[in-house]
């Protein structure tokens, strides 16, 4: 990719730099809550990036992606509750369980397509939700407070807000990079080919089911990691983390930001969550503004925020798949 000086690329760069400099602002502005808010945004952005991998590039419309947030979160929460606070145990477990869950439900769900795929992924996520709600030992519906964050080696301390923010940010940038590399690899081309014409891809000899399943598992694992981060961030896990409305939120972030664009979900997450925060501080009735705004984005800004930015300024001659 040769970076061109378009409006969009400038904004992307500005956003990346702004996110990196945020702790400085929080420190000198004396407002540490900005850091808390943005840590949350960064974590959810990572979940949205992982969803975009299957949604935007793979054409797999999962309506159950929040399940991995919950699974990753509960892996940390349950282990912490049982006295295992080492991140070297908690996080690999979170990743492994998420991957396993994705493998099983992916293998079953990928037999269906279209709306039925949406609904079957929803069904599995809701099952996970109810199972977690039924865990009396771990708080059931009320959730579980985590009294000690994941422990790693000495200088890294997740209880330090700045350190934790940078860890999350690094992982977000890392996952954006992973997605970028993936979709530009042979693997990614097969996935995108299967999205536009599955039959043809199979006809030329690609076992697309296996490719798609692998993609599904990668996305699930990545989201499981953001679940582990989210649990550490909120010091609390509850079934609400994986309720279907949360899956809906993630979809909204992706579509709002721009599907099938690597940076899109980051835009979407930042825009949606900042908008919520700002509007709700202006008026109690903030949803009456946000609702029609979302509808307008759908009607008039195809490709979401990323699409808008691409249109702004001089048009690049060819839409580069980034």
């Amino acid at each position: 990719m040769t970076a061109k000086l378009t409006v969009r690329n400038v904004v992307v760069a500005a956003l990346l730099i702004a996110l990196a400099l945020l702790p400085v602002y929080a420190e000198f502005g004396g407002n540490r809550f900005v850091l808390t808010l943005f840590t949350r945004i960064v974590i959810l952005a990572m979940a949205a990036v992982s969803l975009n991998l299957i949604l935007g590039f793979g054409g797999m419309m999962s309506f159950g992606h929040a399940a991995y947030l919950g699974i990753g979160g509960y892996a940390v929460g349950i282990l912490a509750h049982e006295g295992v606070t080492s991140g070297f145990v908690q996080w690999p477990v979170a990743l492994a369980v998420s991957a396993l869950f994705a493998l099983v439900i992916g293998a079953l769900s990928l037999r269906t397509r279209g709306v039925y795929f949406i609904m079957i992924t929803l069904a599995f996520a809701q099952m996970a939700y109810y199972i977690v709600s039924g865990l009396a030992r771990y708080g059931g519906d009320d959730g579980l407070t985590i009294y000690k964050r994941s422990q790693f080696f000495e200088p890294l301390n997740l209880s330090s807000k700045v350190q934790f923010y940078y860890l999350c940010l690094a992982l977000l940038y890392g996952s954006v990079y992973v997605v970028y590399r993936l979709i530009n690899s042979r693997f990614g081309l097969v996935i995108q080919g299967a999205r536009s014409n599955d039959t043809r891809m199979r006809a030329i000899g690609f076992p697309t089911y296996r490719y798609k399943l692998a993609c599904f598992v990668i996305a699930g694992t990545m989201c499981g990691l953001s679940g582990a981060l989210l649990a550490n961030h909120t010091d609390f896990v509850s079934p609400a983390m994986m309720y279907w409305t949360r899956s809906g939120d993630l979809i909204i972030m992706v579509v709002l930001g721009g599907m099938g664009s690597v940076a899109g979900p980051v835009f979407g997450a930042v825009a949606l969550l900042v908008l919520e925060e700002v509007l709700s501080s202006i008026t109690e009735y903030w949803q009456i503004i946000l609702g029609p705004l979302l509808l307008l984005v759908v009607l008039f800004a195809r490709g979401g925020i990323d699409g808008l930015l691409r249109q702004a300024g001089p048009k690049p001659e060819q839409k580069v798949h980034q």
Partner: protein
Amino acid sequence: MTLFIEQCLNGLQFGLLLFLLAAGLTLVFGIMDLVNLAHGSLYMVGAYFAATFAAFTGSFVLGAVLALVATLLVGMAVEVIAMRRLYGRDHLDHVLGTFGLILFFDESVRLIWGPAGLSLPLPPWLNTSVQILPGVHYSAYRLAIIVVTLAVAAFLYFLVMRTRIGMLIRAGASNREMVGALGVNIKLLYTLVFGLGAALAGLAGLMQAPILTVEIGMGEKILILAFVITVIGGIGSIRGALVAAIFVGFIDTLGRAFFPDMLRLMFTKEVAATAAPALSSMLIYLLMAIVLIVKPEGLFSAGNR
């Protein structure tokens, strides 16, 4: 045995209520290929209208009729203003756009009627229980719901199977382009179908209002069940929706009724008490997953989608 009969009636009543919601959803989904998350909002609007009109006119039945008409009009207005522009777009665009509508409806209701919610009191002749079998008493109003919804189901069957408009609806569900190509006024048909779906949702909302609630967000809670039914039954199939709705109603109610006791046999009281409500709610989703794994297009698939 008495208990079992009662629980079956509870399940049937809940299932039929869900059918009203799912019928509208499956029509809109099947014919316009529109994923309408805001369907639950129309359910809410129906209930609010009914509570308002009933208080205004002093008559439960008159209030209900006025509310039905009003919800039909709101539905058609929503179709003309917003939904029409979403046809042919990606399903995810539908999700985002109609989610925006949910927020809008919820807050509008809060602005107009306040946050507290309303109540729709029943007339005394419905607010009682009747003896249906020797020794079995059952809520008169729940029986009334069963009767009304069965009548609506019969009406829908007649409408879809025996009338010209029904023929167009069926044709639209299996091949949209072709209906348009044959010179049918597709725009009007869509507006009517959407209005009909809205009225059905409104009817469900107003009928459950005296038992359950008239409050903001009531639609979101039940919407997902309506989607589950639509999918289990096969998108676009009213018959499928009816079968699936009754199934889901039974599973939900009987699960809640008998599952906790089964769990108590296996686990300690505390574990069972927490796990039972959660696990019985899960049964419906388990059913959907199994149906989709075995029949990836639902039980009675109408189209070729």
